């Protein structure tokens, strides 16, 4: 951390007012060495989580799943079935916890809201011209307001990567601030689309930018570009939320999304959370998995731990 960045922190809330101040701050953040970050992530991936620890991790991971469907072919019937599964992931086992949230397009929100009402499962919606974010701000804000009005209590927005990569940080910042305002009481998850940011330095800067602008969560990916969540990207984002809380006192959540398909993957993420930011983030309020097929693998592994027998996909619902 450079001296510039440290002094700039003394009044972080002022940063958004000036393009120069924002740039100076973001470029003063410590760099990320790619090889070192990837090695650390790989090392954490070698942790061996067995028996009781595995059982604990699986239930936590289920509670952290943002059960997601973001297809052009989504229909009310399809999302209602998904919501039902979110409530009772394993109908055969009432001790199985429900997931963290269901995540759908804004148009699908009313159908899901009916099913989830009063359940404690959150309803997330991707707004702001997901996944490209390439729409006029007013359209994005209207998208957001509509989703919230229809019952979403979490909004997953995408940042304007074009503006970010062009160095127009204020533009990105202002959009996040405006979207946050449009969210009202709903939580705002800011999707960085890290696969398009290309470098870990950019991931760290974008993380800080999103947090400074008021994001409640930072999320890796839309799932719509070739490179989605990775362990090292999530590591860099976890370091960012850790440092942001140290600097401001405000805790921000992290959501890797896309490409996390197996229990083994999910546990690696939980180990990383545990050893990077600790117990405070090991909670569905502060860490989520954006995933769809992950849930069934978690359920299969859970059954295996309970019964001692490996299950098969035929024994779990496909919704």
């Amino acid at each position, binding site marked *: 951390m450079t001296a510039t960045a440290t002094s700039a922190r003394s009044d972080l809330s002022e940063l958004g007012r000036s393009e120069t101040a924002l740039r100076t701050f973001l470029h003063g953040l410590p760099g990320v060495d*790619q090889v070192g970050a990837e090695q650390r992530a790989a090392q954490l991936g070698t942790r061996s989580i067995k028996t009781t620890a595995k059982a604990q991790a699986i239930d936590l991971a289920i509670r952290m799943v943002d059960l997601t469907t973001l297809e052009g072919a989504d229909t009310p019937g399809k999302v209602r079935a998904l919501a039902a599964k979110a409530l009772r992931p394993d109908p055969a086992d009432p001790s199985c916890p429900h997931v963290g949230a269901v995540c759908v397009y804004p148009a699908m929100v009313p159908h899901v809201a009916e099913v989830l009402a009063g359940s404690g499962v959150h309803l997330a919606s991707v707004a702001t011209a997901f996944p490209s974010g390439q729409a006029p701000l007013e359209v994005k804000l209207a998208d957001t307001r509509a989703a919230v009005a229809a019952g979403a209590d979490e909004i997953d927005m995408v940042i304007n990567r074009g503006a970010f990569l062009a160095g127009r940080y204020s533009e990105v910042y202002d959009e996040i601030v405006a979207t946050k305002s449009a969210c009202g009481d709903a939580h705002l998850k800011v999707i960085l689309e890290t696969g398009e940011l290309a470098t870990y330095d950019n991931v760290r800067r974008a993380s800080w930018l999103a947090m400074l602008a008021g994001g409640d969560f930072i999320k890796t990916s839309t799932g719509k570009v070739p490179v989605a969540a990775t362990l090292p990207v999530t590591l860099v984002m976890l370091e960012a939320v850790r440092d942001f809380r140290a600097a401001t006192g405000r805790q921000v959540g992290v959501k890797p999304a896309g490409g996390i398909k197996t229990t083994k993957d999910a546990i690696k993420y939980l180990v990383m959370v545990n050893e990077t930011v600790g117990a405070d983030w090991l909670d569905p309020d502060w860490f989520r998995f954006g995933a769809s097929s992950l849930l069934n693998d978690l359920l299969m592994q859970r059954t295996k731990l309970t019964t001692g027998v490996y299950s098969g996909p035929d024994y779990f619902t496909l919704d």
Partner: protein
Amino acid sequence: MSERVAVRKTYKLFIGGKFPRSESGRSYLVQSANVSLASRKDARDAVVAARAAVKGWAGATAYNRGQILYRVAEMLEGRREQFVGLGVPADEVDAAVDRWVWYAGWSDKLPQVYGGANPVAGPYFNLSAPEPTGVVAVVAPEQPALLGLVSVIAPAIVTGNTVVVAASPAQPLAAVTLAEVLATSDLPGGVVNVLTGRLAETVPTLAAHMDVNAIDLTGVADAELAADLEVRAAENLKRVLRPAPAGHDWSADPGITRMTALLETKTVWHPKGV
């Protein structure tokens, strides 16, 4: 008319680019001349001078060191007759000049020949390069007085080491005269320091000195003394160049081992990433 009375030369030590007498005030008669008889203190002073010169000499560009060594050859060529007058055969002087030229060219080639990139199994830049070890004590061979001397000094200094040379006690004049050549060759003071006198007095001091990094025992003919010096050198783990058991053929291609024996290899790693 009476015959002109010659001006006789005083052969002094060469320390830090200057020609002092021994601090002990002693000299000895050899090769029909009075030559300074260096003391232990002179040896220590020479080490101080050599150490002080390391930073500038090791830090000079290889091109610059090569130019200076070539300049030494030029100056030596010009003093050919002077060495012949000291009894050095003319063809030996020629060979000594050629040896300076040979080594001069190595300064900017050895790092490529002796170092290089290492293809490590990972995303790293990895490069090994030779560096001078530092201050080298050198015991010059007695014969051939000039070629032997040049053949031990040049490989040590071309790579950036500085040296304290104990000249052959029986043949010191060529050494002191070579020092005069060096003093007029743009070679920074202290890069080469020359001690004349008794080996038994100066060399054990150099061998035991904790601020000397290496010792070249080529000129030590007495096996027992060589072993004793090597034992002393072990105290700070000096790099030791032992005398060749079968003697040296100074007319042969010197190869690079005299240079590499006085080098360290430094390997630098850096990740490759975006």
